[in-house]
C-alpha cells in the first residue's frame, strides 16, 4: 500500500496485527470464563495509585518515564546553551559573570552527555525492545526500575548543586589538577563526581538488561541474521556502556579518593599523574560519542526502509560496521590528548585509527544512500529528520577526520572549530535521529499521529537553526576564538560570527519547542494512529498502539528480516514452535510468563516468570542516592545509613518467594519441549552473573592500567625505599581463595545430584575458607609499614588490595545467601540457580585474584 496523507493512519498489515489486540487497560473482574487477553492484562498491569507508581515496572511505562526525564534534562541543557549564546552575542558582554558562565558550560555539556543522550536511548531500548524482539517484557524489570530511579535521582542530585551555590565549573571532562583538591576545594566537583556517578550506575544497569534481552529474549525464529538493525545497534552499544561507564566510574572513584581521602593518583608531587585522569576519562569519553551515535544509526536504519518502501541495502555490511565501530571506538581515546605531549609513534597510532573509523561510518552511509536510491521516498517528518541527519552528520564527520590529523588538531585544539565539529556530530548524529525516532514511534507509544504540518515546520526551524548556529563556529574557530571563554575583545573579527550563532540558537530552540508543542497537541487532538500507520516491517507494529501491558498475547514466529512485509501472518505459522506459542497465549494466565530463546538461532528454550511489581528497587535506589549524596557532604553516618537501607532493600528485592513447580507446568514442558521456570530463568540469571563478572574484570583492567601508568612516572618501583611487598600472607590467602572456589564447585556438583547435605558442607567450607582469606588480607594490610597517603604507589597498592577484598566480600555475600536458602530447604537438583551462580562467581574470582595478586605482590620484584 502506498504511504500517502490519505492512507496514513490506516493499518497496513491488518492480518498480522489482530492477535496482539490490546485489552482494556483497566483490570477487569476475572472469572474462569474471562478471555485470555483480559486475564493477561490483569496479570501484567502495573499497580495503581501513588505507591503503585514507585512499584510499577512495565517496560512501556518505564521507558516513557526515562525518555520524558531525559528529554526534560535536554530542555534544561538547551536553556543553558541559550544563556551562553546571549552572553556571547557581543564582545565584552556582562550578561553573565565568568563563574556563572563556567558553571553553565559545565552543566550543559555534562547534562547533554550523561543525562540526555544515553538515558534517552536506553529509554527507547527499554520501551521498544520487547516489542521489536517479539517478547513480553525485559528480563529484569526490577533492575529497570532501579536504573530509572538512580538515573533520575542522580540527575536531580547533580542539579541540586545550584541550591548549594556549588555548581561544577571545570568542564564536562573535569581535568585534574583543576578538579583536584587544591584547585577545586569546595563541593562543586563532588556534585559532579557523585551525582553523575549514580546516574552512570543506572546506565550500566540498563545496559545489562539490554544485552540479556537481545541475546536470549528474541521471538522464535528471529535469528541473529534476522534481527532488526536497531537491536544490533543496541546490543553493541550496551556492551560499550559496560566498558566505558565502568572505566569512568573507576576514574571517578580515583578522583574522589584523591579529593577526600588523601590518595595521590593524580598528584604529581607524590608520584601521581594528571594525565592518568585524561586517559581514564577519554577511554570512557570517546566511546561515549559512539554509545550515542550507534543506536541513532540503528534508528535511521529502521526508518529509512519504511519511508522508501524497500528493505535496507547491505544488511550484513551494516552489522559489520556497527560491530567494527564498537571495537574501534575504544582505540581512539588518545586523539583527545594529541596536545599533551606524546611520542610520535603513539600519535600516529591513534591518528590513523581516528581517521579509519570513518570507514565503518561510511559503509553505513553508503548502505542508506543505496536504499534511498533504489526506493521511492515518502517525505514525512521522520524521514525529513533522517535527511537532516545525513547533511549535518556528514559535515561533522568530515571535520572529525580533519581533527584526526595531528598537525591540524594542534592548530584548532580548544578552539570553536572543535565546538562546531562535535555539535555537528552530536546534533546531526544523535539529536536528529532521536527526533526522527520520536516522530516515527510516538504513534506507537501514544496511539496518535503527530501533526505533519507542525512537524515539518519544527524540522525546518531546527535544521536551519543548527546550521546557522554552528557553521559560523568553524570560521570563528579558525580565526582563533578559544572555547570556554565567557567573553572576547572587540575588533578581533569574531563579533559577526557570534551574533549569527546566537540568532541561529534561538531558531533551533524554536524548532525544539514547536516539536514539544506538537507532541502535546497531537496526543490530545491527533488522528488515531492504528496499529501500523507507516506500513512498517518490524514486529512492534504488529500490536496495538499503544501496546497492551503484555505486548503480545501470542508471540510472533519470525521467518524473515522484514516479518510484516514478507510473512503472510506472523502469528500463523505451522509447526511445533507455533503450537508452543499458541499454548503460551492461553497458559499460564496467573503469572507473568515470557520466553527465552537460544542466542544464535532463537529456538525456544524456556518459559519463565518475569519479576513482578516491588517497592524494593526504589528503596535500593534511595539507599544508593543517600550514600552518594551524604558523601558529598562527608556525612559518613548517613553514608552508613544509606548502605544499610540498600542492603535491606537488596535482601527484600531478591527474597526467594519460591513457587513449587506444578504438574501443569511439567505437562507443558513435556508437551512443548521447553523448560518451565515459575521462579525465574536460570539462563537469564547466568547471563546476568556473566555480565557482573565482566564488569568486575573491566574495573580490574582499569586499575591495572592505572597501576602500570603510574609505574611509568617512576624510575624505581616501588618508590621512596618502600621495598617489594611481603609474599607469605598473600600466598596463604591465595591458596584459601582457591580452596573456597573448589569447595563451591563441589557444593554445586552435589546439589545437581540432589545431595543437600553435600551442598551445605561445600558452601560452608567455601565460606570459611573465603572468610579466612579475607581476614588474612586485612591483617596483612594492617601490618604494612605505610598507608595509602604516602605516595602514588601506596595509593594504588591500597586500592588494588581493596579490590581483592571486594572480590571476597561479594563472593561471601552470595555464599551466605545460598546457604540461608539451602537451610530453608528450597534447593533441589532442578532448581538451585543461586548455587550455580555462586560457583560461577568463585571461579571468576580466583582468576581475577591471581592476576591482581601477581601484579600487586610479584610484579614489583621484576619491573
Amino acid at each position, binding site marked *: 500500500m502506498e504511504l500517502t496523507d490519505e492512507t496514513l493512519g490506516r493499518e497496513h498489515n491488518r492480518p498480522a496485527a489482530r492477535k496482539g489486540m490490546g485489552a482494556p487497560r483497566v483490570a477487569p473482574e476475572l472469572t474462569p470464563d474471562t478471555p485470555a487477553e483480559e486475564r493477561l492484562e490483569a496479570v501484567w498491569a502495573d499497580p495503581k495509585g501513588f505507591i503503585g507508581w514507585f512499584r510499577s515496572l512495565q517496560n512501556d511505562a518505564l521507558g516513557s518515564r526515562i525518555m520524558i526525564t531525559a528529554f526534560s534534562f535536554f530542555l534544561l541543557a538547551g536553556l543553558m546553551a541559550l544563556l551562553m549564546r546571549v552572553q556571547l552575542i557581543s564582545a565584552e558582554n556582562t550578561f553573565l559573570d565568568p563563574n556563572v558562565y563556567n558553571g553553565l558550560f559545565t552543566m550543559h555539556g555534562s547534562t547533554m552527555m550523561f543525562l540526555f543522550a544515553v538515558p534517552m536511548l536506553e529509554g527507547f531500548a527499554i520501551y521498544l525492545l520487547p516489542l521489536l524482539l517479539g517478547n513480553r517484557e525485559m528480563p529484569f524489570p526490577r533492575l529497570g526500575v532501579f536504573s530509572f530511579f538512580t538515573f533520575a535521582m542522580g540527575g536531580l542530585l547533580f542539579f541540586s548543586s545550584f541550591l548549594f551555590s556549588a555548581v561544577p565549573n571545570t568542564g564536562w571532562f573535569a581535568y585534574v589538577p583543576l578538579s583536584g583538591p587544591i584547585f577545586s576545594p569546595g563541593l562543586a566537583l563532588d556534585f559532579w563526581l557523585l551525582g553523575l556517578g549514580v546516574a552512570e550506575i543506572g546506565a550500566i544497569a540498563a545496559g545489562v538488561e539490554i544485552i540479556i534481552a537481545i541475546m536470549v529474549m528474541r521471538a522464535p525464529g528471529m535469528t541473529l541474521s534476522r534481527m532488526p538493525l536497531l537491536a544490533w545497534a543496541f546490543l553493541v552499544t550496551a556492551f560499550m556502556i559496560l566498558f566505558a561507564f565502568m572505566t569512568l566510574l573507576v576514574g571517578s572513584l580515583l578522583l574522589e579518593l584523591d579529593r577526600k581521602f588523601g590518595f595521590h593518583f593524580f598528584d604529581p608531587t607524590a608520584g601521581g599523574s594528571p594525565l592518568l585522569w585524561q586517559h581514564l576519562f577519554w577511554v570512557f569519553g570517546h566511546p561515549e560519542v559512539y554509545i550515542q551515535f550507534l543506536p541513532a544509526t540503528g534508528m535511521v536504519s529502521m526508518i529509512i526502509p519504511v519511508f522508501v518502501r524497500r528493505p535496507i541495502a547491505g544488511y550484513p555490511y551494516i552489522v559489520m560496521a556497527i560491530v567494527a565501530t564498537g571495537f574501534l571506538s575504544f582505540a581512539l581515546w588518545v586523539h583527545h590528548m594529541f*596536545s599533551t605531549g606524546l611520542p610520535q609513534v603513539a600519535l600516529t*597510532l591513534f591518528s590513523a585509527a581516528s581517521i579509519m573509523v570513518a570507514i565503518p561510518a561510511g559503509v553505513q552511509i553508503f548502505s542508506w544512500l543505496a536504499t534511498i536510491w533504489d526506493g521511492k521516498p515518502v517525505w514525512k517528518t521522520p524521514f525529513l529528520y533522517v535527511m537532516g541527519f545525513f547533511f549535518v552528520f556528514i559535515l561533522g564527520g568530515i571535520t572529525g577526520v580533519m581533527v584526526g590529523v595531528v598537525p591540524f588538531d594542534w592548530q584548532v585544539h580548544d578552539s570553536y572549530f572543535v565546538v562546531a565539529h562535535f555539535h555537528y556530530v552530536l546534533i546531526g548524529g544523535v539529536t536528529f535521529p532521536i527526533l526522527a525516532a520520536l516522530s516515527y514511534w510516538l504513534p506507537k507509544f501514544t496511539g496518535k499521529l503527530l501533526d505533519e504540518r507542525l512537524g515539518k515546520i519544527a524540522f525546518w526551524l531546527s535544521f536551519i537553526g543548527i546550521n546557522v548556529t554552528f557553521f559560523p563556529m568553524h570560521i570563528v574557530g579558525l580565526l582563533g576564538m578559544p572555547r570556554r571563554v565567557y567573553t572576547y575583545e572587540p575588533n578581533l573579527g569574531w563579533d559577526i560570527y557570534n551574533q549569527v550563532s546566537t540568532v541561529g540558537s534561538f531558531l533551533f530552540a524554536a524548532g525544539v519547542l514547536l516539536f514539544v508543542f506538537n507532541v502535546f497537541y497531537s496526543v490530545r487532538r491527533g488522528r488515531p494512529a492504528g496499529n501500523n500507520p507507516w506500513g512498517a516491517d518490524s514486529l512492534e507494529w504488529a500490536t496495538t498502539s499503544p501496546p497492551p501491558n503484555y505486548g503480545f498475547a501470542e508471540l510472533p514466529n519470525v521467518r524473515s528480516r522484514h516479518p510484516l512485509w514478507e510473512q503472510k501472518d506472523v502469528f500463523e505459522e505451522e509447526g511445533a514452535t507455533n503450537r508452543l506459542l499458541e499454548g503460551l497465549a492461553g497458559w499460564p494466565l496467573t503469572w507473568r510468563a515470557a520466553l527465552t530463546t537460544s542466542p544464535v538461532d532463537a529456538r525456544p528454550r524456556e518459559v519463565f516468570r518475569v519479576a513482578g511489581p516491588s517497592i524494593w528497587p526504589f528503596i535500593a535506589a534511595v539507599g544508593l542516592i543517600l550514600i552518594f549524596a551524604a558523601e558529598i557532604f562527608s556525612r559518613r553516618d548517613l553514608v552508613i545509613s544509606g548502605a544499610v537501607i540498600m542492603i535491606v532493600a537488596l535482601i527484600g528485592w531478591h527474597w526467594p518467594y519460591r513457587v513449587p513447580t506444578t504438574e501443569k507446568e511439567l505437562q507443558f514442558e513435556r508437551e512443548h519441549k521447553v523448560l518451565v521456570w515459575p521462579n525465574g530463568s536460570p539462563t537469564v540469571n547466568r547471563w546476568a552473573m556473566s555480565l557482573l563478572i565482566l564488569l568486575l574484570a573491566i574495573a580490574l583492567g582499569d586499575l591495572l592500567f592505572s597501576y602500570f601508568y603510574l609505574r611509568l612516572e617512576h624510575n624505581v618501583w616501588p618508590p621512596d625505599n618502600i621495598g617489594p611487598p611481603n609474599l607469605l600472607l598473600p600466598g596463604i590467602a591465595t591458596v584459601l581463595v582457591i580452596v573456597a572456589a573448589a569447595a563451591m564447585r563441589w557444593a554445586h556438583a552435589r546439589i545437581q545430584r540432589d545431595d543437600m547435605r553435600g551442598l551445605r558442607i561445600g558452601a560452608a567450607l567455601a565460606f570459611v575458607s573465603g572468610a579466612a582469606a579475607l581476614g588474612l588480607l586485612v591483617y596483612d594490610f594492617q601490618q604494612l609499614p605505610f598507608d595509602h597517603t604516602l605516595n602514588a604507589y601506596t595509593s594504588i597498592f591500597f586500592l588494588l588490595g581493596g579490590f581483592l577484598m571486594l572480590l571476597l566480600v561479594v563472593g561471601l555475600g552470595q555464599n551466605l545467601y545460598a546457604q540461608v536458602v539451602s537451610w530453608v530447604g528450597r534447593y533441589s537438583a532442578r532448581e538451585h540457580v543461586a548455587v550455580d551462580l555462586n560457583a560461577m562467581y568463585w571461579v571468576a574470582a580466583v582468576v581475577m585474584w591471581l592476576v591482581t595478586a601477581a601484579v600487586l605482590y610479584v610484579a614489583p620484584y621484576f619491573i
Partner: protein
Amino acid sequence: MYFMLAYLAVEVACRLGWLQFSVGGTNGITVTVIGLTLAAVGVLAVSLLIGVGRWRRLRREQASKKDTELGNTDLFLAQVGVLLDLIFIFLLLATGAPALILRPCAWN
C-alpha cells in the same frame, strides 16, 4: 588490547628508556611496535582464513540445498566475521606502518 599494549610499550620505552636494543639496525621500539602489529595481524589473518573457508563451505551447502535456517545464520555470521577481519587487518597495518619511518621517541 593491541592499542593498549602498543601505546604502553612506546611510553615505557620513551619514558623509562626500556627496549633500547636493536635488531638489524632497527631500534627496539620500532621492532616492538611492528612485532605487536604483525602478531595482531597474524591472529586476524588466521581468523580470516578459517572464516573464509567456513563461509565457502556454507555457501556450497546452501547452493546444494542442504541449508537449514541455522545454516543461513551461520553463513551470515561467517560473512560478518570475514568482513570484520578484513577491516581490522587494514586498520592495523595502517596504524602500525608509520612506526617504520618515524623516530619513535621524538616528541611533538
